[in-house]
């Protein structure tokens, strides 16, 4: 095995496969499992006495059906299957879409018929997503009744099955786009936290690894066996692989937790989509959630690539800083300005949902020191478009490559130096020495 491979393997083994790694991952898995099973946990403790929501029904189908009775019967069957849902129906004579009067209701449904097809307009006023699910199921039953209303028994026998989907339109009281962006912004905040933690962890590992060898002088032995570039690369790659493995594991834990939540424990008996599930949790329209979920894969992809390349960028930077330090205390004071810069990026991400379309945020999105943390959240909150993200990513990659070529000689010059001069003076000295090398 080449020394490069050996050092890389050794570095990875020091991070992955340790007791600390196993314990941290067990905790992360349990936390994710608990988080994604909140509906099941809620359902487990639910006494079934959820507060009843009223839906007004305006029946203009002219089919002579007892629509309220049909809806009530269908609902009763569903309520026993969906814990937490509780809805009842009351008749109303008319509805004016331009001047809705909800009264005590959480929604008004306007039933009309296009020949034998039921057409439903749903005007929502904060209807619970779970109840909305029940309502849609009940309307599907009514749909069949409407279709069958004018048919003779002979006609019904000829057409044994009716598979037409329910024709309905939901009218919400909120602006969909704003809500979608708000949700994405909120998600982005949750995304920013793990990105920040993972980046801090991985860059810390690089720094601590190097400074541990340097402060114990073990570096002298190591450097007498492998070239500085090999040492530099293996330290960065080992932490980089850790970053990818840990991110991948968190992703897998999320999938397992989601699977356990929806399929194994299944508080919703598999009748609820993920968007409905999240909608129920966040009390948000499932259509908006669905729109959010459609935007999420791209957002998560951007998050992933920025985290990976950004991680590499920060690690190169941190490894060089560690090579200039002589002890752990020295390293701590050396990395403080760097950590402060990362914190700025983190807070910019957190406040991006409040700052909106800020020019400062946009500028931060193009600076590689901030972009790995800021760009994913700015994209999710709609401040940056896809083109902006691509430009920022190209800048980040270019800076990472440039940073490697700029700092690798500095690392070589400083890794065996125990210079104690002040911060900027030392950096200047090491750059000067790297040019001499």
């Amino acid at each position, binding site marked *: 095995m080449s*020394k490069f491979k*050996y*050092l890389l393997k*050794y570095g990875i083994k020091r991070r992955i496969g340790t007791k600390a790694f196993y314990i941290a991952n067990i905790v992360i898995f349990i936390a994710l499992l608990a988080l994604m099973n909140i509906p099941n946990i809620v359902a487990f403790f639910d006494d079934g006495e959820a507060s009843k929501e009223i839906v007004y029904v305006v029946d203009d189908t002219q089919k002579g059906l007892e629509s309220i009775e049909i809806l009530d019967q269908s609902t009763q069957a569903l309520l026993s299957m969906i814990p937490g849902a509780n809805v009842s129906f009351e008749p109303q004579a008319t509805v004016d879409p331009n001047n809705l009067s909800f009264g005590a209701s959480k929604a008004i449904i306007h039933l009309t018929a296009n020949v034998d097809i039921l057409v439903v307009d749903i005007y929502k006023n904060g209807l619970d997503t779970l109840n909305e699910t029940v309502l849609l199921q009940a309307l599907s039953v009514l749909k069949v009744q409407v279709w069958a209303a004018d048919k003779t028994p002979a006609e019904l026998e000829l057409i044994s099955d009716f598979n037409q989907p329910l024709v309905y339109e939901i009218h919400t009281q909120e602006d969909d786009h704003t809500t979608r962006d708000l949700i994405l912004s909120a998600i982005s905040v949750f995304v920013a936290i793990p990105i920040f933690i993972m980046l801090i962890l991985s860059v810390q590992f690089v720094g601590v690894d190097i400074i*541990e*060898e340097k402060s*114990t*002088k*073990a*570096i*002298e*032995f*190591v*450097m*007498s*066996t*492998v*070239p500085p570039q090999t040492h530099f690369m293996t330290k960065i790659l080992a932490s980089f692989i850790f970053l990818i493995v840990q991110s991948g594991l968190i992703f897998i834990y999320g999938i397992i937790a989601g699977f356990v939540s929806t399929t194994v424990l299944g508080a919703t008996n598999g009748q609820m989509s993920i968007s409905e599930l999240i909608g129920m949790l966040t009390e948000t329209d499932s259509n908006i959630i669905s729109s959010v979920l459609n935007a999420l894969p791209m957002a998560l992809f951007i998050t992933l690539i920025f985290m990976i390349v950004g991680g590499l960028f920060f690690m190169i930077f941190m490894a060089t800083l560690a090579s200039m330090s002589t002890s752990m205390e020295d390293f701590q004071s050396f990395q403080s300005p760097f950590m402060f810069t990362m914190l700025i990026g983190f807070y910019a991400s957190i406040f991006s949902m409040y700052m909106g379309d800020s020019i400062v945020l946009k500028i931060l999105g193009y600076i590689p020191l901030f972009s790995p943390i800021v760009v994913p959240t700015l994209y999710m909150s709609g401040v940056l478009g896809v083109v902006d993200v691509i430009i920022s990513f190209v800048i980040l990659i270019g800076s990472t490559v440039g940073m490697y070529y700029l700092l690798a000689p500095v690392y070589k010059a400083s890794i*065996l130096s125990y210079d104690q001069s002040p911060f900027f003076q030392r950096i200047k000295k090491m750059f000067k020495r790297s040019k001499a*090398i």
Partner: protein
Amino acid sequence: MLEVNHVKKNYGSLTAVNDLSFSIQPGEIFGLLGTNGAGKTTTFKMILGLLEPTEGNIRFHGKKISYDDVDQIGYMIEERSLLVKLSVKELVLHYGALKGLDKDTILERLNYWLKRFNIESYLDKKIKELSKGNQQKIQFITAIINNPKLLVLDEPFSGLDPINTNKFVEVIRDFQQKGTMIIFSTHQIDHVESFCEQLIVLEKGIPVLQGKISDIKKDFKRHNIRLIGEVEEAKLRSIEGVLDVIIQPNEWIVKIADESFSEAVFNYVKTCKNIRKFDVEQATLSEIFIEKVGETYEQV
């Protein structure tokens, strides 16, 4: 063969080593002496390729030392360079792998050396739990685990008691017998005197004394006369050629400028009572060292 040819190393305006040249043959032990900051460690780092000489060159078996040669070199640095959180086994496995050895070979050799140093029970102990002397032994083992052709030892005996120092000396002699080139630095001049063929004394980067120890001692004119008897200090000091008189609990040491002055001293001593010892000997290496380093101080 290791050849160091007119090597110079500058750190900015400071010259750490200036025009240093020497060579070591297989099976030879070479001593590098000097006060703190004399340039010994810088010389070692240049030999190992950790530092590039500003001028001159270093050749190992006729070619410039590169990372292809490191597996044939053993290096023990002055300060302890151990990863203290690891166990003895983990550390030696790590360092051995960095020297290109496979796991089985490392463990086999480690067991041998632990036994030889009487610390076989420390295999799974953390380095930080070991005493300084035992840490020094582990560090020594990491330097020799690859059976090096060139062994570079920077202050190998510091912190060791006489018994363990002798063990180190035995091992170093074993490697010498196997044809290993050994270069080491020390503050304890008696070690150099006891088993070095050649030495260099560095002072502020400049070689002030160099060559075979026997030649150095021969070239150094001053001699010491050790005597036991009832003599008068004032009379001894008044003799021509006597540089100094030191009174020790059991004997007198009379320092003379040249061996030829011993006769005049003897002529006086034979007139005294109870003379039980009169021994003319060469100056010690320690005296030569102090003399030479002192001279350089004066020149600077």
